[in-house]
């Protein structure tokens, strides 16, 4: 715990310094609140509008988590498929790169057109943006099993399914977590981007992304900042949940897994 406090001390110091600079700049240059609200104004907005912030947080969290969960299931299945043969990989892998290279803001309007607005469309945007890191990293882990381990399974007359489930998949779990970490952060970005285009605009149904466009159009810059803070908090939350599971599954056997606090 002492160690935790000590390691948290430095970033906290940086935070305080930035807040002080921010406050100082607002006062010194007399920046109007609708361009850059001072920290106390942002804090006031957080307190005052906490109900709508929590509501938006819940909606966006649900969308991001839904898309993320789907991307894990579909991504791992696709990686299993890719692990079957180099021919399959060479044939299909270039197309999965499309997932990464086609800008999501260009695809989002299409999704809106095809599937309409609402929770499902936003989840779909988050899903698309999360998919590639899961596929790429899991596939990498599935196909880099040391030759001797494969031979060991062959000597035991292991079936293809046994090799996949008892050798390749466990070997790929550390790689899967690399993908999971990357996708955890971008699932929130995906959900917010999705909401810019395809959020439901019924009262109380808009998430953080929808609220950000609303706050922006109304020049409620303090609320906008509060929303951005909330979105970052959501990203952090997802990331640390993944880190926790990574530690849970890997710390006993994996060399590179995060060391427990005692270290």
């Amino acid at each position, binding site marked *: 715990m002492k160690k935790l406090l000590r390691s948290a001390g430095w970033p906290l110091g940086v935070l305080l310094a930035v807040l002080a600079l921010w406050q100082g700049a607002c006062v010194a240059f007399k920046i109007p609140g609708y361009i850059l609200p001072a920290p106390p104004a942002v804090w006031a907005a957080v307190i005052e509008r906490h109900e709508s912030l929590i509501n938006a947080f819940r909606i966006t969290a649900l969308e991001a988590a839904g898309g993320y969960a789907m991307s894990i299931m579909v991504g791992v299945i696709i990686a299993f498929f890719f692990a079957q043969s180099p021919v399959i990989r060479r044939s299909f892998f270039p197309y999965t790169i499309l997932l990464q290279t086609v800008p999501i803001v260009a695809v989002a309007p299409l999704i809106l057109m095809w599937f309409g607005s609402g929770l499902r469309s936003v989840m779909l945007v988050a899903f698309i943006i999360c998919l590639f890191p899961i596929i790429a990293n899991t596939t990498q882990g599935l196909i880099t099993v040391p030759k001797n*381990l494969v*031979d*060991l399974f*062959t*000597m*035991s007359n292991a079936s293809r399914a*046994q090799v996949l489930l008892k050798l390749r998949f*466990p070997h790929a779990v550390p790689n899967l977590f690399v993908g999971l970490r990357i996708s955890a952060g971008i699932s929130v970005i995906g959900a917010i981007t999705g909401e810019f285009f395809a959020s439901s605009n019924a009262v109380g149904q808009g998430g953080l992304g929808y609220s950000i466009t609303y706050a922006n159009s109304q020049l409620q810059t303090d609320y906008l900042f509060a929303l951005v803070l909330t979105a970052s908090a959501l990203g952090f939350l997802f990331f640390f949940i993944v880190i926790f599971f990574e530690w849970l599954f890997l710390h006993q*056997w994996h060399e590179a897994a995060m060391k427990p606090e005692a270290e």
Partner: protein
Amino acid sequence: MSDSPSTPPFISLTDVTKTWASGSTVLDRVLLTVAKGDFISLIGPSGCGKSTLLKLLSGLSPLTSGRITLDGMAPDAAREIMSFIFQDATLLPWRTVLGNVELGLELERKTTREQRRAKCADLLKLVGLADVASHYPRQLSGGMKMRVSIARALATRPKILLMDEPFGALDEMTRDFLNEEVLRLRENDRFTTFFVTHSVAEAVFLSTRIIVLRAKPGRIEREIPVPFPFPRTASLRSAPEYLALVGEVSAALRAVKALA
């Protein structure tokens, strides 16, 4: 060769040849018969094909020409009665020691989980690993890992054991200790062994016969029987006849190295 002429030898290699796709010949018409319970060490300069020979016996690599029969079966069919011990311990890092030892039986799917557990726990007791049964491989020393690897190979009660330089990476004390351990386990199970090594002392200590191979192409150059009776103990290492035989094998090894 100790078998009577009417019964076919337990293991026979007839004109075993292996050529790489590039056209170079690794093994050239290797002829060998092995009796049940033999402990055969394969020794020779690098490139003599000793490790390749193990791969052929295990069926992990196909023959170019010739024939191998193991207890009347072709190599891939004989996997049921064979275990392979690799140069590194090749343990699954995500499984505990017990989980690793269970692997072979688990993949065979002939036993229930409880039977496996009980069997492997007994085996771990036999090899002195009972108190690390729930440890993960990364918590073990190199020698311990190799013992787990040996226990895993023996869990399926193989009739034939193929060992590819299993103790090459270990320090001498650990190596000597594991040599004695292998002989002790062999007293229980009487598996027939092919053992690839670079260490003459180890080969003499363990084997019933030493096969000296030459390189380019790999061929059997000499066969040296090791007459010392079993059970052998550490004291054999200081016996004059042991040291004399180590000298003889070393000379034979130097001779084949000079050929290449």
